[in-house]
């Protein structure tokens, strides 16, 4: 995996239960994934903005048949993120058979199979 310092910070803050999103200090764009240079204006060294509770719309999803049963992975357009950048995470709060493009989602954290908190997309008013 091509890990990097910006991803490490993103994952560490989520693991602490305080998910963050990269934000450009120059043009203020909020974007994903974390990277060295703002994709909107080219300024290096972006900072961070709190992301917990950020809401948005499910842009696409896929139901992965894992050994533990079906898991949903989604790409969301978060309202605070500049158009084009998307948030990729597990989708929780809904049965795999009920998930649909266009559903409202909220950025949260939840434990993965190793007990580590990771960012997730929670479906608002979902079926579970």
């Amino acid at each position: 995996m091509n890990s990097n310092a910006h991803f490490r910070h993103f994952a560490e803050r989520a693991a602490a239960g305080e998910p963050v999103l990269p934000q450009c200090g120059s043009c203020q764009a909020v974007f994903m994934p974390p990277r060295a240079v703002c994709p909107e204006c080219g300024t290096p060294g972006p900072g961070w903005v709190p992301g917990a509770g950020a809401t948005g719309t499910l842009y696409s999803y896929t139901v992965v048949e894992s050994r533990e049963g079906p898991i949903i992975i989604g790409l969301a357009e978060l309202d605070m993120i500049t158009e084009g950048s998307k948030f990729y995470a597990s989708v929780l709060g809904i049965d795999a058979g009920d998930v649909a493009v266009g559903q409202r989602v909220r950025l949260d954290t939840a434990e993965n199979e190793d007990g580590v908190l990771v960012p997730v997309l929670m479906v608002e008013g979902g079926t579970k």
Partner: protein
Amino acid sequence: MTDVALAGMGIAETWAPGHRDTMDVMADAALKALADAGLRPGDVDGVFTATAQVMLPTLALSEYLGIQPRYLDSTVHGGASNLSHIHHAIAAIRDGKCEVALVVYGSTQRTALKASGSRPAVASVPPVESLASPMFPISSYALMAQRHMAEFGTTREQLSSVAVAASRWGSLNPAAQRRDILTHEEIVASPKLSSPFHKLDCCLITDGAGAVVVTTAERARKLNTKAVQINASAEFSGHEGVMAMKDLVRTGASVTGRAAFEMAGIGPGDIDVAQVYDAFTINTILLLEDLGFCPKGEGGKFIAEGNIDPGGSLPTNTSGGGLSFSHPGMFGIYTVLEAMAQLRGEAGGRQVANARRAVAHGIGGTMSAHCTLVLSN
């Protein structure tokens, strides 16, 4: 500007799981391509290789074949790599940096899978995506497919029509690893992997190697009466992972397709046969749309109506493609090899009558790298 051509082609014999090493399938394909062009290894002065299994592959293969190249290129960006090699070789030849370029791909990934339980990785999951434990790269393409269905009403049956068409072509190709013609019912009865994809929406996992020889059109004509002209080439990348892909249903193929057609001075309507990298069923839909062969959003309908089938208006992936012919990892070289076979009139029972102009399109990563070639006989 110097015209450049494809003077030779070679495909290695590979029946995995076997006991051949990656170097040997690469050397086999390379020597066949050189023999086809009437050349010997010592005539080569530019070597271009891609593989996920050999370290320093351009150096290793050059030594193995007794070549001391003055132009070296080990560009690796997945399934577009070998098309990019050709794109780069054109520039190098025009600039006088080399005259005979050997472009090679090889993989024994099926043998490796059988031996170790895992396939040599061509790409790694992007860091943020890894937190969600996806089925990489299948889930990335599945997200494109699901979005295409939501945005344009593409149906599950239309996705199946891509694999059915590929299998119809594969049934006509004695070298195809899948010879049976699939049905929609069989595809949706195959194991679910990452929705909307089932196992039969995904490419084969095979061993294989292929090579082509690129040189000046003038020299190619002297060497081989069946030389294929390269009319245009273009490459582009807009992202690596799907999070950074601005629009999951509009790909970089629209950039390279437009550039290549403009350079060739023709349009999609002038193309007799298309070869596009079909790692997953959605690929053929997206790439045919973005290369301009049908309107955006209508790729599923276009394919389900039989346009890319044998006898259709745009015969596509006529070898059987990655879905039915072979898929040893970075499939790009096979889009070129099959375009050449068609333009040379050597495609046997799957030959498209009067095939004069072809498009070969490779993709790498998750619809990340794109390279389009326009070829003619």
